[in-house]
């Protein structure tokens, strides 16, 4: 597994740059990841990212867009506004989680 430097810390990532170790992430890291892909974090963004982190911890998998909307209470349209074009992957990236594996 490659490592990369985010916010001054060495973290483990996959070949694309998604973080692979849950506990290497903190909110400052998330902020740096968001900045790297041009997402300006607001409270609404953080609400989503925190849901992703908690849900991953509970379920062992990165939630899909549908799950963020049904279980996390942020509707799909909003997710596309907050994380344009590829919301599922961008959310996962900022939250330091693997890309969601589910189809829907």
């Amino acid at each position, binding site marked *: 597994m*490659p490592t*990369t*430097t*985010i*916010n*001054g810390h060495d973290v483990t*990532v996959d070949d*694309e*740059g*998604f973080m692979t170790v849950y506990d290497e992430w903190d909110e400052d890291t998330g902020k*740096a990841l968001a*900045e*790297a*892909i*041009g997402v300006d974090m607001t409270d609404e963004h953080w609400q989503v990212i925190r849901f992703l982190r908690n849900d991953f911890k509970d379920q062992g998998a990165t939630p899909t*867009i*549908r*799950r963020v*909307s049904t279980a996390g209470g942020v*509707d*799909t*349209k909003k997710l*596309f506004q907050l994380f*344009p*074009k*590829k*919301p*599922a*992957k*961008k959310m996962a*990236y900022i939250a330091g989680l693997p890309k969601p594996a*589910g*189809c*829907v």
Partner: protein
Amino acid sequence: MTATQDMLVPSFDDEVETGRKLAIIISKGSLDMAYPGLILGNAALGEGVEVELFFTFWGFDIITKGRMEHLKFSPVGNPAAHIPAALAPIPGMTSMATHMMHKSLEELEIPEVPEFLELIKASGARIWACRLSADMNHLSADDLWDGVDGIINASDFIEMTDGAQLLFI
């Protein structure tokens, strides 16, 4: 910010305006054939691809208010259903197969058809109903699911999907 200099950052293709577009023609109205178009459309939307869906012929049931919640899966004539051909047409088999399919979809957390349509609509899909199918079924916009963008003819659809990749299901 200096930290980003050494960072391995995945490409989300934000800088390129790919203009990639997918047109999906959904012509079948059985429960099993409703899903491929919805799942592929949803996947494309999640990748930032523009998606236009055209519901025509039997596929019209999927967006018809009175029918969309009652789509059926029939094992008749479908060897991939893995039910002996002689048993497939017996009474009750279709409702049993439909019930089983709903159960499998639920276990996989795949939404029912109406909710799935809501999902892709909220993700930015445009949903079109076929004019000829509406006329054949004597249906108007009031009979169709609220998220339908309009009733258009085949030429309209071909025109508006100029340059798109196309899936016929």
